[in-house]
């Protein structure tokens, strides 16, 4: 399979200002030395809780946030060092869908203008062609072109999310970062939008980088999943593999914490102790060790590398060895 996106040692630190001269006195290590790749046509998911850096990571991949270190390779070409104006032509092939259907549409522009803007900016076609394209895309995402001249506030959350999707696909991109695309929507609307995303992927041969926290959603739409914790990727695997054989203790706890809509399922829940530590002062060694029931001294001293334990199943834990051999025990 061809790799569409490759991310190598990606790092993003945000400064924490302070002191007499408002100089950085610390860094929020939002994304810290993360590597992964995304195959063409697949849905690759970054899952994690708040503070895991998944959203920052997703936005950095398409250079909406400037990386501190590391390499981003898109279609075999390194884009990390490109200036924003050099990036502009590339934006035709990479797009983003946002979480907040209320904040992501300019309230002063009518819907038709919002969807047409990418065409306008990239100077594609005549005005007539652009307008035709807008109508086509609106139909494609399930919006009636009648509402071309309406303003965002006249639409419901689900419809706004469709507008955002229309804007993202109007340029026919190859790659879309979907940042929590359904988490702000009502349950009955979530399914509609998920169906739309799946449907568009098939029709337009899209590659998705899905950033999400809802594991049921992620399981339904993704091919491969990377689990993030405090700026690190701690486990990467194919979806079915990850759900059937989670190897990292954090992944196990995360999966067990998901509530299931079935009163008969009474699961053994792995309750994690305490809170997620601050990304400004992450724990030494393995970042999960403060909440891990298997933590030993080595976890404090050494950071576990992300190793391939079984063909495309990567885990970063001292006690998971090649061949999915797990050696952790409760101390």
């Amino acid at each position, binding site marked *: 399979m061809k790799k569409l996106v490759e991310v190598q040692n990606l790092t993003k630190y945000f400064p924490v*200002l*302070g*002191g*007499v*001269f*408002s100089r950085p*006195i610390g860094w929020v290590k939002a994304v810290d030395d993360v590597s992964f790749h995304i195959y063409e046509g697949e849905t690759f998911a970054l899952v994690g809780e708040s503070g895991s850096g998944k959203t920052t990571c997703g936005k950095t991949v398409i250079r909406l946030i400037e990386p501190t270190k590391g390499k981003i390779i898109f279609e075999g070409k390194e884009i990390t060092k490109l200036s924003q104006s050099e990036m502009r032509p590339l934006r035709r092939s990479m797009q983003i869908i946002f979480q907040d259907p209320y904040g992501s549409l300019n309230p002063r522009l009518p819907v038709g203008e919002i969807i047409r803007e990418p065409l306008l900016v990239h100077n594609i076609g005549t005005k007539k062609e652009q307008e035709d394209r807008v109508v086509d895309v609106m139909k494609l995402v399930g919006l009636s072109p009648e509402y071309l001249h309406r303003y965002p506030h006249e639409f419901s959350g689900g419809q706004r999310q469709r507008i955002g999707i229309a804007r993202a696909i109007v340029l026919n991109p190859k790659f879309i970062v979907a940042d929590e695309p359904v988490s702000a929507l009502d349950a009955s609307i979530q399914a509609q939008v998920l169906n739309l995303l799946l449907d568009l992927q098939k029709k337009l041969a899209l590659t998705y980088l899905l950033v999400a926290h809802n594991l049921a959603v992620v399981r339904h739409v993704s091919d491969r999943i990377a689990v993030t914790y405090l700026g690190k990727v701690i486990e990467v695997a194919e979806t079915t593999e990850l759900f059937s054989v989670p190897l990292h203790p954090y992944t196990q706890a995360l999966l067990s914490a998901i509530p299931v809509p079935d009163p008969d399922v009474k699961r053994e829940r792995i309750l994690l102790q305490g809170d997620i530590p601050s990304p400004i002062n992450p724990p030494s060694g393995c970042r999960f060790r403060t909440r891990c029931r298997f933590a030993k001294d080595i976890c404090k001293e050494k950071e576990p590398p992300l190793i391939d334990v079984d063909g495309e199943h990567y885990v970063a834990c001292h006690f998971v060895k090649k061949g999915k051999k797990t050696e952790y025990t409760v101390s």
Partner: protein
Amino acid sequence: MRNYLIRRTLQSIPIILGAMLVSFIILSLVSDPFAAMMENPKVKLADIERLRKAWGFDLPVYLRFFKWFGSVLTGNWGPSLLYPGYSAREIIFRALPITLQVMGLQFIFSLIVSIPLGIISAIKQYSKTDYTLTFFSFFGMSMPTFWFGLMMMLLFSVYLKRPSGASLLPPGGIITPGMESAPFLARLGDRIQYLILPVIVLSLNSIGSWVRYMRSFMLEVLHQDYLRTARAKGLPERRVIYKHALRNALIPIVTLIALSLPTIVSGASITEFVFNIPGMGQLILNAELKNDYPTAMIALTLSTVLVVIANFVADIVYSFIDPRIRYA
């Protein structure tokens, strides 16, 4: 907090310097202070030349500024050109307490009136009381200070008379002639009579706008989730308002009041002019119009420093009311 204080102090310095420079440049545009002197036959031309040189009028403006600034730092604030024989310092320290009295009273009076009215207006939103208060705040906000001053003078000194035939309140000035050596209480009573009108006139504007601001900050707070929590705990409504809502609504008011200080000083100058009060405002106006720029500059600088200090104090007060502001 310590770092923050240091940083704020450091930040204030360029602001004060900049403000001095701007004032200096504008004042030196006004005209040559020595031109007027030349018309006075008693002053020798050589003396004028000497003064000119001493004040750096042979230099370009920016160099003159540094010369002046240097002498200010060494404590030599220069002579008053408006009141020959006096130093600028003497003139200013005679005017400053009067202005501080007027402004201090105005400040306290405005706060005492506007904060409760703002709260009432917010709690009773869309009631008759609210509409009435709203109308009167607009009334206050829209009133040109000097004109209101004239109208009040008209009312209290022309239309309203004491049985003795004297006017109810003195139309201007700061002291009844002959009262200078009266006992303290008598002097105090006399002073209060003179201050009533200026303070009311000056307060009107700030009361008008502070009531509106207090109302809107309070309304904002009244819609916060934590007030619902407070009510859900079973707290009496009084406690919900005065403990939970008020403190949060006061946070933005502190900043706002600090920011409105320059306007108060500006307002003071014209009010002092109207009521003929020998305070800083009138002094600055007179000094700059009569080309007494040593006095005008020092007076302006002092006003600026006052404003900067007030902003500084406001920030510290702010950090006490709002625990979220923790200065690194």
